[in-house]
C-alpha cells in the first residue's frame, strides 16, 4: 500500500520537475522512487503500513512478490528506455510519469480484494498505455495502434463491466470473499452468474492477449514505441494474468468445471496460433507479439490448478519471460532497429559479443532450454497441471518445440558472420549495461527455485 503511494507521488513530482527540462534529474527521482517502493514492498515482516486499515487492497506474500516483479520490470524499462525518452526533452518526464501511473494501476490489480478496486486498477493500468502507444505522433503505425488499442480496449472494458454487473446481480456483492462464499453455498442465480463468468473471462483474454481475442496484439505492438511495447508485454501482462488467476483460480474455483473447458480451448489456440504465426514474420516486434501470445498460453496454465504453488510457478515463468523480453527490446534499441526487421540482428554476436551473449541467453530461455529460468517456469507450470490435464501438457510441449525452432533461427542469425559489413561496435550506455546485466541474472534461473 505504501509502495503504491510512493510511486504515485514520485510520478506527480516528476511531472513538476519536468518543467525544468532536466531529464537526468527526472530519471534520478523516478529511479529512487521506484527503488524506495521496491524496498517498502520487500520489508514485509516487521513493518506496519500507515494505511493498513484500508481493506480494499490486501498484500500477502504472493501479492508482494508479484508487485515487486512489476516494480522491478518498470525500473528496468525506465532505465533501458531512457535514451529513447530523452530525445524528446519536452516530454521526457511526462512519459516516465505515465509509466509510473500505469504501474500504480498494475499494483492495484495485483492487490485488489473487491471488484471496485479491480476495475479501478484495470483502468488506471490501461489509460496511460492508450496515451503511451501513440507518442510517436508523426508515425502512422503508432497512431493506428493507439486508436486500435483504445477502441478495442474500451470495448473490452465495457464487456468487463457488463460481466461485473451481472456478477453483482447474481451474488449481490462486489467483495471477492463474499462472492466466493455465495458461490460455495450455491445460493446464486445460475445463468446470470455463468454468463458473467464468460464475459469477464472474455475481457481478461483480451487484456492478456490470448487467442481468440488477440487481434489487436501484433498491430499495437508494432506501432508502439519499443519500450512501451515491452511494458505492455511484461508489466501489463503480468498484472492482468495475476488478476485473472486470483479471480478464476481463487474466487470462482468452485465453478471450475464450467469455465476450464473454455479456457482450455483458449490455451490450445494461443499456444499454436502464436508460434505458427510468428514463424512467418519479418518484423521483429510482430514476431515478439506473436510469441508473446504463445507465452500467454503457457502462463494461463497456472489457472488450471488450484494448488497453492501455481502462483509461485507463474511468478518464475513471468520473471523468465519478462527478463527475456526486456533484454531483447533493449538490444533492439541499442542497435537502432528503427526499421523493425529481424534481419537487423544478423551478426550481432560478432560485433558485440556481450549483446550476442545476452540475446542468446534470452532466446534460449524463451525456448525453454535448461538451466535457464524459462525452462524452470515452464516445468513448474506444466508439472502442476499434468495430473488433470495430461493432453494439454503434451500439446504445450509440442508447441514449445515449434517455439524452439523459431528462437533457434534467431540465434543462428545473431551468430552468422556477415562479411559485407565492416565490424563496428554499437555503443552501449551504462544504463543499458545495467539493464542487460540484471536481465541476465534473472535468466539464470537456479536461484528463483531456491527462494520460491
Amino acid at each position, binding site marked *: 500500500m505504501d509502495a503504491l503511494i510512493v510511486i504515485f507521488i514520485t510520478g506527480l513530482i516528476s511531472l513538476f520537475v519536468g518543467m525544468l527540462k532536466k531529464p537526468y534529474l527526472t530519471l534520478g527521482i523516478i529511479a529512487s522512487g521506484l527503488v524506495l517502493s521496491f524496498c517498502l514492498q520487500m520489508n514485509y515482516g516487521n513493518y506496519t503500513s500507515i494505511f493498513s486499515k484500508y481493506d480494499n487492497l490486501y498484500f500477502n506474500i504472493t501479492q508482494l512478490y508479484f508487485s515487486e516483479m512489476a516494480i522491478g520490470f518498470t525500473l528496468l524499462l525506465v532505465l533501458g528506455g531512457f535514451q529513447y525518452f530523452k530525445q524528446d526533452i519536452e516530454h521526457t518526464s511526462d512519459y516516465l510519469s505515465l509509466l509510473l501511473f500505469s504501474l500504480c494501476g498494475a499494483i492495484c490489480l495485483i492487490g485488489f480484494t473487491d471488484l471496485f478496486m479491480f476495475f479501478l486498477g484495470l483502468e488506471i493500468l490501461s489509460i496511460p498505455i492508450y496515451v503511451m502507444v501513440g507518442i510517436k505522433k508523426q508515425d502512422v503505425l503508432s497512431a493506428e495502434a493507439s486508436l486500435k488499442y483504445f477502441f478495442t480496449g474500451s470495448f473490452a472494458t465495457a464487456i468487463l463491466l457488463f460481466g461485473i454487473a451481472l456478477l453483482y446481480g447474481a451474488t449481490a456483492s462486489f467483495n471477492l470473499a463474499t462472492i466466493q462464499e455465495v458461490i460455495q453455498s450455491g445460493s446464486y442465480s445460475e445463468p446470470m452468474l455463468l454468463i458473467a463468468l464468460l464475459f469477464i473471462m472474455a475481457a481478461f483474454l483480451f487484456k492478456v492477449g490470448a487467442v481468440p481475442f488477440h487481434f489487436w496484439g501484433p498491430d499495437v505492438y508494432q506501432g508502439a514505441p519499443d519500450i512501451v511495447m515491452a511494458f505492455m508485454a511484461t508489466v501489463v501482462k503480468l498484472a492482468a494474468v495475476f488478476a485473472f488467476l486470483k479471480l478464476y483460480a481463487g474466487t470462482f474455483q468452485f465453478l471450475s468445471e464450467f469455465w476450464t473447458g473454455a479456457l482450455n480451448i483458449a490455451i490450445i489456440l494461443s499456444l499454436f496460433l502464436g508460434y505458427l504465426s510468428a514463424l512467418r514474420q519479418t518484423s521483429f516486434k510482430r514476431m515478439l507479439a506473436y510469441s508473446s501470445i504463445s507465452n500467454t498460453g503457457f502462463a494461463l496454465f497456472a489457472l488450471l490448478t488450484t494448488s497453492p*504453488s501455481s502462483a*509461485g510457478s507463474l511468478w518464475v515463468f513471468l520473471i523468465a519471460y519478462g527478463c527475456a523480453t526486456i533484454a531483447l527490446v533493449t538490444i533492439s534499441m541499442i542497435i537502432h532497429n528503427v526499421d523493425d526487421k529481424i534481419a537487423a540482428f544478423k551478426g550481432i554476436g560478432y560485433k558485440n559479443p556481450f549483446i550476442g551473449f545476452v540475446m542468446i541467453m534470452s532466446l*534460449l530461455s524463451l525456448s525453454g*532450454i*535448461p*538451466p535457464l529460468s524459462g*525452462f524452470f517456469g515452464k*516445468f*513448474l507450470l*506444466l*508439472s*502442476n497441471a*499434468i*495430473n488433470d490435464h*495430461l493432453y494439454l*501438457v*503434451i500439446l504445450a*510441449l*509440442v508447441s*514449445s*518445440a515449434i517455439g*524452439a*525452432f523459431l528462437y*533457434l*533461427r534467431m540465434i*543462428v542469425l545473431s*551468430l552468422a558472420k556477415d562479411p559485407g559489413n565492416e565490424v563496428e561496435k554499437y555503443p552501449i550506455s551504462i544504463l543499458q549495461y545495467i539493464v542487460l546485466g540484471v536481465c541476465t541474472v534473472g535468466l539464470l534461473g537456479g536461484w528463483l*527455485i*531456491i527462494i*520460491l
Partner: protein
Amino acid sequence: MELLILPFVFGILSFIIPSSWSRTFGLIGAASSLMVALFHLSGFEPQTVRTIFDPNRTFPLGLSFKMGFDALGLVMILLTNGIVLLVLLSNWNREIAKNKLFTALVFLMQFGLLGVFTAQDGILFYIFWEFTLLPIFLILYWFGAKDNNPTLFKFFIYTLVGSLAMLAAFITLGSFSSSYSYEDLRQVSLPAGYACWIMSGFLLAFAIKIPLFPFHTWQPATYSSAPMAGTMLLSALMLKMALFGMIKWMLPLTAEGLECMRWPVIILGSIGIVYGALIAIKQNDIKKIFAYASISHLGLIAAGIMLYTTSAMQGAMIQIINHSLISVGLFLAADILENRTGTRKINELGGIAKLAPHYGFWFAVIVFAGLSVPFTAGFIGEFILIKEMFSFHMIIGIVAATTLVLGAVYMLRAYQVSMFGAPKLTEFQDLKWNETFVFVALTILILVIGLSSNCIIDFLEPSLSNYQVTLK
C-alpha cells in the same frame, strides 16, 4: 563435486586466456580431469553409490538436485574424461585447437556429460541432457562445414523434440512420486496403462539420440558436415548418454512397460543393424561409411539392452566402451585422409599405405578392432550380445549375427579402396606424434579391455544387477 567443477572452471577460464595458450591449457585441463576421475576409481567399492552433492532438502515440486555415481556412472565418467583428452590431443596440430572458443566448448560439453552421468535426480538429468546440446551445437555451427544450417536445424529440432518427450515422461512419472530423486522414482509402481506411454516418451528421446532406425536421418548429414572433434564427441560420448539413460533411467523406472516396448525396439535395432551396414557398403564418403556403421553397431547395443538380462547388459557395456574408442580412432583416420588430401571420397584415393606406412598400419589396427577380431574388446562385447540375442529368439540372433559379416565388408572395403591399389597421389604426410599417440593409446586400451574384460564385467556387475531389481 570437483569432478564437475573442474571442467566447468576450465571451460570458463578458456574464454579468458590468450588464444596461444589454449591448446596447452586444454590438455592440462583434460589431463587433470582424468586424474581426478582415476583418483575416484581408487578405493571405489562397486556395490556402493558415492554421493558427490546433496543439498539435503527438497525444493518446490520435488526437485532434489542430488548427484552421485555408482560403478556404471564411474565407468562412464572415466570414459568421458579419457575420450575428451584424446579428442583434444588428436586436434593438437589443427587450426581448430588454436581457437579458445573450441577448447571452452569442449570443456562445457564435458561438464554437461559428467552431469548426465552423475545426476541422481530426474530433472537434473534432463537439465544436463539438454545442456549438452548447446556446446555441441555451437561446435558444429562455428567449426563445421559452411552452409550446414539446414543440417544443424534438423539435428537440433530432432533432439529437442525427443528431449521434450522425455520431459513429459519425467513429469508424468514425478506426479506419482514424492520427489524426483532417483531413489524415490525407483519406488514408484506405475499403473498398467501409464508405464508403456512413459517408457515410449523416454524411448523417443533415446531413439533419436542413439539413433535407432527410423529416427536416424539427422545423423549421417550431421556427421559429415561436422568438424572432426564434433563427430568424435557426438559418436563417442553423446550417443552413449542415450544408452546410459536406457540402462540407468528408462528400464529401472518403467520396467512395467518393458513387455510392450521390448519387441519394437529389438526389431528396430535389428533393422538398423542390417540397414546401416548395407548402406555403409554402398557409400563413397568415408565419414558417411563410419556414420552408417555407427547406426549398425548401436542398433545391436540398443537391442541388447532391451533384453534386460544381466549378461546382455554387461555385453552392452563392453560394447559401449569399445565403440567409443573405435569411433575416435576411425574418425581420426578419416579426418587425416581429408586433412591431407582434401577429399573424403574413397574412390579418389588409393595406395596410401605405401606412401604412409605408419598411418596404414595403425588405421588397419583400428579397422580390425572395428571388425571385432578376437583379443579386441569388440569380440567380447559382440559375442555376448549375439549369444543373448540367440537365446532370446533365434531369428533375431541370426539377424544380429550378420553384423559380423557385413561389418567386415564395409570396413575392409573402406580400408582397401583408400589404402591399397595403385597410388593416385604423389605424397602423403605420415602420422604426426600426437596422432600416433592417440592410435597407440586406443590400441592399448582396446587390447587391455579385450583381454581382461572380466575385470570390467565384475566391476559393473553389482550396479547392473541393482538396476534389474524391479523386474521380477
